[in-house]
């Protein structure tokens, strides 16, 4: 029979709309004020932290609605902001500098919704308020550094192979090695060629030089490494800021985007992002008197430092190795399945380490984490004074003479070893970074934008609703239902996609989609009217109308989708938000306007004998 949908098709449409509605639902719940406690420098919040926080809050008569431990972070929810602020002050004082305590707004999604993965949409910075930075990694500096390290490596390797050379020098974008005779040149070429496969080597017989150039592949690798490493460092530092839901993301080939929702004090954020941290290895002073040192009589050649848990350690003043020699670090397990940190050094560092450890086998060696933190004090010129903070992160016994690669055990649990590896990698920046873009949105402007955006969406919807009902009567109502379902689907899909954020231009995108989504229905309805004017029966007209308009709708929407996808590819922040809502809107509107309205039309008018149609 004409214009009847099989039951499964109707059910499928209902199911999809219900599915969208389910995931759009979390957006209706307000947010709870909360306090987020996260560990610093490799510490993680655990069950013990949870208990102590719990008892402290109850002792101070602060009522909280829930407390959960998740991914090494503690989240305490409160019923009002007053309790939240009091709790923040209390916890900040009692937990000390091992944890950061941040204010947070946590979605109050009910448990049953959260258990099926329901979360509200993420708001962009222009709606939530906060600060965003775009940082640029200085890539030419990264390449220079990589070349410097290589000059060292070439020297060590040639010496090890007993090939005599006159000089190893860095030229523009290659490394030139000069030899005394042709035999050495050929020998070196053969040897280096095998060892450094990602270099293009060329001999110059006239002046006995071998020049090595990085392949494009290697150059790309160096850049990629510099970017990835800087992202890791920045992520660590951002975590130290204690901001809830920060975003650190690469953008293109040399940029890093950092979004800190809710942060207004950009000066402090910038200082921390620009701060430096590094690592040093020192021998433990086993001859010195620790208790005397604790009383203030520190030996002249030693220095008193503390471990994270407050245990004092007496260290030799002479630094065995500084962290800028660390090329890579990772965590794994040793043969007794204890967590360990594997460290690779550049060749100069390897030499230093080897010399420093060969006469000290069996003695303990300490890894010291050094950080420069900005203080509130300023010097005469108004520059912030940085405070040097030194902390012993591990003490381990030297088992054998160490070389370019070695490992540290005794760093604690597996996750602590992992974090230590991160910090070691993060210790020295591969390439300097610089802030090239900064945007701060005040909280009132953000709230105002949300209000304006919602007003525009409601008004746009209202106007189109009225127009469609006046113009198409009963069919207008059907189109409006589809439009409503479309909005629900857009919000549901936006909430479901993890990377999608709602921005002010994104809201404009929703408004625009509303205007354009009815186009599909206008096409169909006009076609039905045309068919009816040509004298076809009403059921025939409906059928033909939908059929004939279908390919037009597909073509028209795909071309718009092309424009939206290109916009997504080049856009940043708010513009990406616009492209996302527009793309999602195009796809969902095709579904609601074609399949959705057809379902209703078929259910109401399909298969009946009709003389008139309210269109």
């Amino acid at each position, binding site marked *: 029979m004409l214009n009847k949908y099989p039951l499964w098709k109707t059910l499928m449409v209902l199911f999809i709309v219900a599915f969208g509605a389910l995931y759009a639902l979390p957006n209706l719940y307000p947010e709870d004020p909360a306090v987020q406690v996260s560990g610093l420098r490799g510490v993680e919040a655990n069950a013990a932290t949870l208990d102590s926080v719990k008892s402290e809050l109850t002792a101070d008569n602060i009522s909280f609605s829930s407390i959960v431990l998740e991914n090494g972070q503690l989240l305490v929810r409160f019923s009002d902001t007053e309790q939240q602020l009091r709790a923040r002050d209390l916890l900040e004082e009692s937990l000390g500098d091992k944890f950061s305590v941040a204010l947070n707004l946590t979605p109050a999604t009910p448990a049953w919704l959260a258990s099926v993965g329901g979360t509200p949409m993420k708001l962009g910075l222009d709606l939530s308020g906060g600060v965003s930075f775009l940082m640029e990694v200085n890539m030419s500096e990264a390449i220079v550094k990589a070349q410097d390290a290589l000059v060292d490596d070439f020297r060590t390797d040639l010496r090890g192979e007993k090939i005599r050379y006159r000089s190893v020098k860095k030229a523009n974008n290659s490394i030139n090695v000069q030899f005394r005779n042709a035999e050495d040149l050929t020998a070196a070429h053969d040897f280096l060629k095998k060892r450094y496969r990602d270099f293009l080597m060329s001999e110059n017989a006239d002046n006995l030089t071998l020049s090595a150039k990085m392949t494009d592949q290697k150059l790309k690798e160096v850049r990629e490494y510099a970017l990835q490493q800087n992202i890791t460092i920045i992520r660590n530092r951002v975590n130290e800021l204690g901001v809830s839901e920060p975003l650190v993301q690469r953008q293109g080939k040399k940029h890093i985007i950092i979004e800190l929702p809710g942060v207004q004090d950009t000066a402090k954020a910038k200082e921390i992002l620009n701060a430096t941290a590094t690592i040093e290895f020192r021998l433990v002073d086993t001859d010195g008197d620790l208790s005397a040192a604790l009383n203030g009589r520190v030996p002249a050649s030693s220095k008193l430092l503390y471990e994270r848990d407050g245990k004092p350690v007496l260290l030799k003043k002479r630094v065995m190795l500084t962290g800028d020699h660390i090329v890579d670090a990772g965590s794994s397990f040793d043969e007794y399945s204890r967590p360990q940190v594997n460290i690779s050094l550049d060749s100069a560092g390897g030499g230093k380490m080897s010399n420093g450890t060969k006469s000290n086998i069996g003695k303990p060696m300490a890894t010291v984490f050094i950080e420069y933190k900005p203080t509130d004090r300023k010097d005469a010129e108004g520059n912030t004074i940085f405070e040097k903070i030194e902390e012993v992160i591990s003490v381990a016994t030297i088992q054998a003479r160490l070389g370019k690669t070695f490992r540290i055990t005794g760093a604690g649990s597996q996750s602590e070893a992992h974090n230590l590896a991160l910090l070691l990698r993060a210790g020295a920046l591969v390439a300097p970074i610089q802030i090239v873009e900064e945007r701060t949105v005040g909280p009132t402007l953000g709230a105002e934008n949300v209000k304006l955006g919602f007003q525009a969406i409601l008004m746009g919807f209202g106007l189109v609703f009225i127009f469609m009902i006046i113009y198409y009567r009963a069919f207008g109502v059907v189109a409006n239902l589809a439009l409503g379902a479309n909005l629900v689907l857009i919000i549901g899909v936006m909430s479901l996609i993890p990377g999608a954020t709602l921005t002010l231009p994104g809201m404009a995108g929703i408004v625009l989609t509303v205007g354009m989504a009815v186009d599909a229905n206008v096409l169909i309805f006009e076609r039905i009217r045309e068919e009816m004017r040509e004298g076809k029966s009403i059921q025939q007209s409906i059928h033909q109308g939908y059929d004939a308009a279908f390919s037009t709708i597909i073509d028209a929407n795909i071309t*718009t989708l092309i424009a939206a996808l290109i916009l997504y590819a080049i856009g940043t922040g708010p*513009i990406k938000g616009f492209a996302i809502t527009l793309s999602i809107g195009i796809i969902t509107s095709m579904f609601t306007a074609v399949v959705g309205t057809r379902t209703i039309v078929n259910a109401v008018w399909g298969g009946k004998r009709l003389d008139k149609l309210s269109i």
Partner: protein
Amino acid sequence: MQILQLKETVAFMSYRRGALIFSVILMLASVFSLMTNKLNFGLDFTGGTLIEVGFEKAADLNKIRAVMDSNGYPDAVVQLYGSSRDVVIRLAEREGLNVEMLGNEVLSALQAGTGQNMEMRRIEFVGGSVGDELAEQGGLAMLTALICILVYVAFRFEWRFALGSVFALFHDVLLTLGLFSALKLEFDLTVLAAILAVIGYSLNDTIVVSDRIRENFRKLREGGPADIINISLTQTLSRTFITSITTLLVLAALFFRGGELIHGFATALLFGVFVGTYSSIYVASSVALAFGISKEDLIPEVIDKEGADQEEMTP
């Protein structure tokens, strides 16, 4: 209800010479304006610093300018933004400008200088190199979009239609840019997004018309190309108008209710929808016609059945 009750076919194509002259004049005017006035590029493209401050009472711009001047920012551009209490201060990028502390410095200078309470609404700093890169990327995006669309339409329809629709898009983009340059409106990233949306919209319109032209070329046996285009345009005219109306309705909502930040966006789209509607009627079809679109180009090739040319064998 019915807005257009067209009984007769409107002879759109007989006015195409006039439309052509009209379009050419507007396009030349746009190019002229773009060359003399240039585009008033926003912070996103030029780089620099922008500070938006909300005052409690109506702001005195002259006083603010004087305060900025006496605090070492003689080049600051001070403007109202949306309401009499919102002020935007723009500073060009220059050497020795400490961007790190700029926001706080300006804020405290204004607080001291005007004696009024105020709040920081937004601070934006964009480095010059970022802006250059963005302008390049934006241009590239526009070009990529046009090429992708050209390829798609050529593949789905016919190269003459593809040329027609891309020419119409070019026409729409040029006129919108011309409007922004003539009225000296600020051209920022959201406006760029709006122009890409105009491309999407205008294309939507053009495709609907082209689709009908193709259908009619196949269906109708009588009439030359111009007649068929006229018939198709008349048949789709009512949907063209209705879609324009609904889109203009929502854009009006954005324009009046969306706030200052997306004013430029809404302006570009409002104008773009007008031009896009006009261009899908006149520009796209007349270009296709000028390139000599004919029935044969659109009728699918009949594949000969094997043996169809042989005489039927009689037993």
